[in-house]
C-alpha cells in the first residue's frame, strides 16, 4: 500500500526523474543492440560456412585493426581523411551559404543562375573525381574538391528557401524602423535562416565523408579511401572492413560536431523530441 502510494507520488511529482530513468533504460537497449549485432557478425559466418576472406568475423577485423594501427600507420590515414572532410565540409558549406544568401536575396540572380546550379547538382559529381586527380595530381586537393561539390548543394538549397520564406511582416517591421538592407539581412534574414541552415549542414557533414572517400579511392596514397583500395588489392578483406568502420566513425564525429554546434546556436528553439539525432 505505502509502496504503491509512494510510487504513484513519484510518478506524479517527479516526472523529470521518471523520464530520466526511462531514458537510461533506452541507453541499455542501444548498447544491447550493438552487442547482438557484433555477436551475429562474429558467429554467423562460421555457422553458415562463409569463408573468412568473404566475410571475416568481428574478432578478425579487430585483430587486423590492431595490426594496421602499427604497420599501416592507420592514425595518419584517419587524420588525413578527417582533415580533408573538415576542409571540404567547411569550404563547401561556406560556398553553399554564400550562394544561398545571394540567390535568396536576389530574384534576378536566382533566375539567371538556377538552371546551371541545378545542372551541376544533377551531374554525378563523383564522376568528376578522376578529372580532378588529372588536374591536381595525387594530392589532398581532388579529395577536398569532390567533397566541396557534394556538400555545396544541400546547404545552398536550405539557405535559399529559408531566406525566401522569412515572414514578410518581419521585414516590414524592420523597414518601418528605417532599417537598411544590410540591417534587415543581419538582424532578420540571417538569424531566421539558422534552423534550415543547420539541417543542411547535418546532411552536408555526412556527404563530405562520401566526397573525400571517393577522391581517395580514385587517386592518392593516403587516407582511409586509399586504405580501402590497398586492402582490396591485397585481398585483405578484414582491412577493407577496418577502413569502412573508421570512415563511418569519421562521419559520425562530423555529424555530432554539427549537432553540438546546432544545440549551441539554436538554444532558443524548443528541444527536439528525439534524443541523439
Amino acid at each position: 500500500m505505502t509502496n504503491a502510494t509512494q510510487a504513484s507520488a513519484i510518478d506524479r511529482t517527479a516526472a523529470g526523474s521518471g523520464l530520466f530513468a526511462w531514458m537510461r533504460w533506452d541507453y541499455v537497449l542501444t548498447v544491447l543492440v550493438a552487442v547482438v549485432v557484433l555477436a551475429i557478425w562474429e558467429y554467423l559466418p562460421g555457422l553458415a560456412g562463409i569463408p573468412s576472406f568473404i566475410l571475416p568475423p568481428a574478432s578478425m577485423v579487430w585483430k587486423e585493426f590492431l595490426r594496421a594501427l602499427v604497420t599501416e600507420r592507420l592514425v595518419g590515414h584517419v587524420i588525413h581523411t578527417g582533415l580533408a572532410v573538415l576542409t571540404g565540409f567547411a569550404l563547401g558549406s561556406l560556398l553553399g551559404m554564400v550562394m544561398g544568401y545571394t540567390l535568396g536575396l536576389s530574384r534576378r540572380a536566382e533566375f539567371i543562375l538556377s538552371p546551371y546550379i541545378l545542372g551541376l547538382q544533377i551531374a554525378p559529381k563523383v564522376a568528376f573525381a578522376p578529372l580532378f586527380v588529372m588536374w591536381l595530381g595525387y594530392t589532398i586537393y581532388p579529395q577536398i574538391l569532390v567533397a566541396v561539390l557534394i556538400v555545396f548543394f544541400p546547404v545552398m538549397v536550405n539557405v535559399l528557401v529559408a531566406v525566401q520564406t522569412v515572414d514578410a511582416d518581419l521585414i516590414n517591421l524592420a523597414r518601418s524602423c528605417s532599417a537598411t538592407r544590410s540591417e534587415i539581412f543581419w538582424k532578420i534574414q540571417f538569424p531566421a535562416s539558422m534552423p534550415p541552415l543547420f539541417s543542411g549542414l547535418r546532411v552536408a557533414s555526412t556527404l563530405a565523408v562520401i566526397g573525400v572517400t571517393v577522391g581517395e579511392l580514385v587517386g592518392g596514397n593516403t587516407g582511409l579511401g586509399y586504405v580501402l583500395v590497398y586492402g582490396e588489392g591485397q585481398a585483405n578483406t578484414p582491412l577493407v572492413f577496418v577502413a569502412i568502420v573508421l570512415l563511418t566513425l569519421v562521419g559520425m564525429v562530423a555529424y555530432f560536431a554539427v549537432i553540438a554546434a546546432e544545440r549551441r546556436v539554436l538554444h532558443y528553439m524548443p528541444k527536439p523530441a528525439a534524443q541523439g539525432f
Partner: protein
Amino acid sequence: MNGNAQVIGETPATACPQPERRRETRLEFRGVVKRFAGTGRQEPVTAVTNVSLKVGEGEVVSIIGPSGCGKSTLLNLSSGLDKPNEGEVLVDGSLVSGPNEHVAFMLQKDLLLPWRTIQQNVEFGLEIRGLSAKERRERSTDWLGRCHLTNFAHAYPRQLSGGMRQRAALARTLAMDPDVILLDEPFSALDAQTKMILQRDLAMTLVETKRTALFITHDLNEAVSMSDRVLVMSARPGTIIEEIVIDLPDRDKPFARRADPKANRYVARMMELLGLDRLDLLPV
C-alpha cells in the same frame, strides 16, 4: 499601465475629451486612392478610394469595415511601407514618402524574433535607430515594467503565452516612442479574457502617455470602448462612409465604457452601417 492612473481618474473631462478641432493633426489622409496591380491577366484592384481622414494629437481613432475593405492598406500607407496612387498621406504635417520614425505599428502577429530575449526584442527598433546600449537598456527596462513583463525580460518568446507575447510586441512598439501608433487588430488572435485585459492596459497606456493611435479592428465593442472616434468603411473599394464620435467618458477604462448603455447604441449603429443587422436574410 500600472496602478497610478488616479491622476486621470480625477479629471475624466480632460482625459477623454470631445475631439477638439483645434488640436494639432498628427496623421492625415487627403483623397487617398490605392490600387494594386493585378497578377497575370487579372484586373488591377482598387483597395481604397477617396479616403480622407484626420487623427489629432492624443486621439484614438478606430477603423472598422467588412473584411477585405482595405483597412490594412491604410495602415501600410500610414507607415510609409506603401505609397498611394493618388492623394497624400501626412504625418505631423509632412508628406510620408517612406518608413519614418514618427510611426510604429503593431499587428495581430507578435513578430517577436525567436532568437532574441524579450528585452532584446523590445530593443529591436531602438537598435536600428542607433541608440546606445545604455539608453536602449533604460528604455526597454522602463517599458517592460509598464507592460508587466519585468520578470520575463530574459525569457525567449517561445516560453511566453500568446497574451504575454502580444504585451511584448506592444512594449516594443511603444519603446520606439512614435508620434502615431498604428494597431492592426492587435488582439484578435487572443482569447476573450486575455483580450479584455490587454485592451484595458493599452487604453490606460494610451491615455497616460497621451499617444495618438489609429486602431484597425473588426471588433465593434473594441472600437467603441477604446476610441474617441470610429470611422466606418464600405466594402471594396473601401472608402469612409461614416464618422461616429464616441461621446463616452473614461477612454482609459474600456470596462466602464462597455457597461454604458450608450455604448450598445453605438454598436447597433455600426452594425446597421455594416449591414450586419440584415445578416439573418443571408443563407448561412
